């Protein structure tokens, strides 16, 4: 039975009608095409009256196929499919002919635009003729979320999800949650103490009954799909039993290895081998650093089990927990598996700490050339100098301090072309913190642009200049070299065309926010996409900012790109709301535009020859293997099968399949050939 197809041509204001004779397109669609029983044009098809027109005509004319010639299907396919569904038609009989992005916007004159539009509409009419009814795929949902990363983004997302009543599992690879925000001294633009606003949230998370926290743990593998992920978590050996330990502090007070560079203090402070990263750590229970611990060093040297070494057991001896001590040298990594419905990735950023790539600034060469985060630790009351600004080399209070912005940002020659977004503001903050502590000191900032597009940000940066007296010099620094105990900074002030030479006591590099070192590997583990700078990619930069390229995996915070705390918290909230929307249903509906490997009656079973080329090209890991078995249980053949939960309908498998055994619903060969043929032979 041939279909009754309706063609609706949209003017899109003048977007289409200026370059395409829409009336002619509608007229031509009917010509020599008996299937097309109705055509019309309308100024704005996506508007409410436009959609009503579509619904009415489906009913009145008894249409069972619709071509809407309008904008890109990315824009409004969903809109028109919904409208036709309301009119009682299977929505997968609606096809969009893209007359705007792919025709009127790119063609200068009406005759060619119209001619191409006629072709485009005819192609879609032919495809529609072969459309089959499809029904949404239903998948069950595990009502539990996983949050990866325990910085401010992860904490916010976890709290939001947990507060709505769902279980959350948080995995943090460091010994404590808190992330970079816990390291900061004060926060812009309000200058409120970072610890004061961060630690209550950390405590709230630890006490929330819906949240299970795994610190000192990493994601081993993620399998499964939207609503049904299987996540393997590696709980790294902590050498401390978290259930037994009370965090009494005895062990780290007696530990003899006291000179290990503290990661939390960015190498400026020291810690012991058994340690908590910072006083407000959560959990406030220690971890044993096996690399630096004397006992483990000795055991490695002698190649004996750590428990047999007798070099130092001070922490174990002093541990007051009885009868079983909380410290356990024999603890090993443990892998646990959790069933998860949705995932929030909040793995954060890494400060550009390899400043030796800026040899011209003395990065990595001079002790008094430090990074932004190091300055935060210097200024922090919980830092190595208890908040006094002292230069690392000799503890002197710097009288002249120079801040260099855009170190590792906006520098294509060094392979980092993007703007790190936060440095302008944190440098302004640094000048204030400095001036508040060293009243007579001079602070100079070399900048290219001062970028402060946030609420209260412009005022904040002007305050640094006008009220606090920081001097801003417009130009990049070319070189920093040592002269006596001073650091000579060679820069420029392009506003006057001057060369600037400052003899400074300390130099602070506003280092860039970079993606985590293992971001690429991690993205591959999760089958999510990442950009040229290894930040994870959102699907749509404007309209889908927290959705990753894999369904059910959401992004929050700086793992997606540089951003400040307010923006991170907002994005974490957005990611949480997306997770909640998923977890609120018992079953999920998915677009049925997925691939399928054919299954035929015996004795063929499937034309699939089991070469699994499709598996190699699938970006989503959606191809599984299936053994077709005889009644006696013996395997007849092994063939490919598409996991509908994972498939995103990209069609790579269908294009790759050598035996033409894979078909993409809604885009099968017959339909695509019908489209092509309609152009060639007319």
């Amino acid at each position, binding site marked *: 039975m041939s279909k009754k197809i309706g063609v609706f041509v949209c003017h899109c204001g003048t977007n289409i009608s200026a370059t395409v004779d829409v009336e002619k397109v509608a007229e031509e669609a009917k010509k020599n095409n008996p299937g097309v029983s109705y055509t019309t044009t309308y100024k704005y098809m996506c508007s409410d009256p436009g959609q009503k027109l579509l619904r009415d005509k489906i009913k009145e004319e008894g249409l069972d196929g619709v071509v809407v010639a309008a904008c890109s299907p990315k824009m409004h396919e969903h809109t028109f499919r919904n409208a036709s569904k309301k009119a009682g038609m299977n929505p997968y009989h609606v096809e969009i002919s893209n007359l705007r992005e792919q025709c009127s916007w790119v063609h200068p004159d009406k005759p060619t635009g119209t001619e191409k539009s006629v072709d485009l509409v005819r192609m879609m009419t032919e495809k529609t003729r072969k459309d089959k009814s499809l029904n949404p795929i239903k998948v069950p949902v595990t009502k539990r979320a996983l949050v990866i990363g325990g910085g401010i983004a992860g904490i916010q997302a976890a709290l939001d999800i947990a507060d709505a009543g769902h279980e959350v599992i948080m995995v943090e690879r460091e010994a404590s949650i808190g992330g970079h925000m816990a390291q900061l001294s004060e926060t812009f633009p309000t200058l409120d103490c970072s610890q004061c606003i961060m630690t209550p949230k950390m405590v709230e998370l630890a006490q929330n009954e819906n949240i299970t926290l795994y610190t000192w743990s990493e994601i081993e593998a993620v399998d499964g799909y939207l609503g049904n992920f299987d996540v393997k978590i590696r709980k790294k050996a902590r050498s401390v039993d978290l259930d037994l330990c009370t965090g009494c502090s005895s062990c780290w007070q007696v530990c003899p290895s006291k000179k290990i560079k503290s990661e939390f203090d960015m190498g400026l402070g020291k810690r012991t081998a058994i340690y908590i990263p910072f006083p407000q750590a959560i959990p406030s229970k220690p971890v044993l650093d096996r690399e630096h611990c004397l006992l483990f060093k000795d055991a490695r040297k002698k190649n004996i089990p750590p428990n047999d070494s007798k070099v130092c057991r001070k922490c174990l001896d002093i541990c007051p927990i009885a009868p079983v001590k909380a410290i356990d040298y024999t603890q090993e990594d443990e892998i646990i598996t959790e069933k998860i419905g949705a995932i929030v990735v909040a793995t954060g950023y890494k400060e550009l700490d390899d400043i030796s790539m800026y040899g011209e600034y003395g990065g990595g060469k001079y002790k008094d050339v430090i990074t932004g985060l190091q300055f935060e630790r210097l200024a922090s009351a919980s830092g190595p100098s208890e908040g006094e600004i002292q230069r690392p080399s000799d503890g002197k209070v710097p009288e*002249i301090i120079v801040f260099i912005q855009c170190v590792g940002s906006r520098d294509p020659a060094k392979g980092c072309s993007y703007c790190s977004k936060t440095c302008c503001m944190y440098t302004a903050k640094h000048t204030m913190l400095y001036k508040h502590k060293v009243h007579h000191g*001079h602070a*100079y900032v070399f900048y290219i642009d001062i970028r402060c597009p946030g609420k209260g940000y412009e005022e904040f940066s*002007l305050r640094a*200049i*006008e009220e606090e*007296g920081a*001097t801003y*010099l*417009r130009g990049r620094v070319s070189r920093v070299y040592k002269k006596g105990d001073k650091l000579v900074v060679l820069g420029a*002030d392009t*506003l*006057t*065309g*001057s*060369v*600037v*030479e*400052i*003899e*400074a006591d300390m130099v602070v590099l506003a280092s860039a926010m970079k993606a985590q070192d293992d971001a690429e590997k991690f993205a591959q583990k999760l089958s999510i996409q990442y950009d040229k700078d290894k930040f994870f990619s959102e699907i749509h930069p404007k309209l889908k900012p927290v959705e990753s390229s894999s369904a059910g995996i959401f992004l929050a915070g700086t793992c997606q790109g540089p951003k400040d705390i307010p923006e991170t918290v907002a994005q974490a909230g957005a990611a949480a709301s997306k997770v909640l929307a998923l977890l609120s249903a018992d079953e999920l509906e998915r677009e049925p535009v997925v691939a399928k490997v054919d299954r035929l009656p015996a004795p063929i079973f499937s034309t699939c020859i089991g070469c699994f080329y499709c598996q190699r090209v699938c970006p989503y890991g959606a191809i599984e293997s299936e053994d077709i078995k005889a009644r006696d249980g013996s395997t007849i053949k092994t063939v490919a099968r598409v996991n509908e939960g994972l498939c995103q309908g990209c069609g790579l498998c269908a294009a790759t399949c050598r035996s033409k055994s894979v078909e993409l619903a809604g885009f099968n060969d017959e339909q695509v050939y019908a489209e092509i043929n309609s152009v060639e032979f007319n």
Partner: protein
Amino acid sequence: MKIKITTKELTSDFAKEVKERSGIDVKKCYQCGKCTAGCPVAYEMDYMPNQIIRFVQIGARKQALTSRTIWLCASCITCTTRCPKEVKIAELMDVLREMALEEGVANPMEKDITTFHEAFLNSVKKHGRISECGMIMEYKRKRPKAALKSALQDLSDGSHLMLKGKLSLAPHSIKGKDSIKRIFEKLG
């Protein structure tokens, strides 16, 4: 001309001094350049008006005080009127002129202008207001080269003005002459 700014300039109190003398806070300027964009004499200047402010900001005393710009400024106040940060730029030029004279570093290329300023003020000091002929005579006497250059134009313009009764040879006096004198005495 290459300018070099060092720690000495940057840590100097030039901007503070300017602020104390005039109340003008140059730190407020964010270097948008609107003053320069609207300045009717900027084309003649060695440094743009915004650069003069910048010199004060970064302590480049020498560049600011020896510039020709501060003398070329016609005090039309377009810059001050339009400045988005309400920096009184024209007034700043005045302060810089004063400082340049005090320190004896005024740009020698603009001696004509400084002499004219002097002649103007001397006339006011003497008569309470300017005596055009007296002022011109003093100026021409002190700057004979400039006098020669504009001699013909002065003759023709001067005679027109005199015929219309706009220019008298003898100085006019005003009522409060003594008060004016006292002002000058007070200011030294």
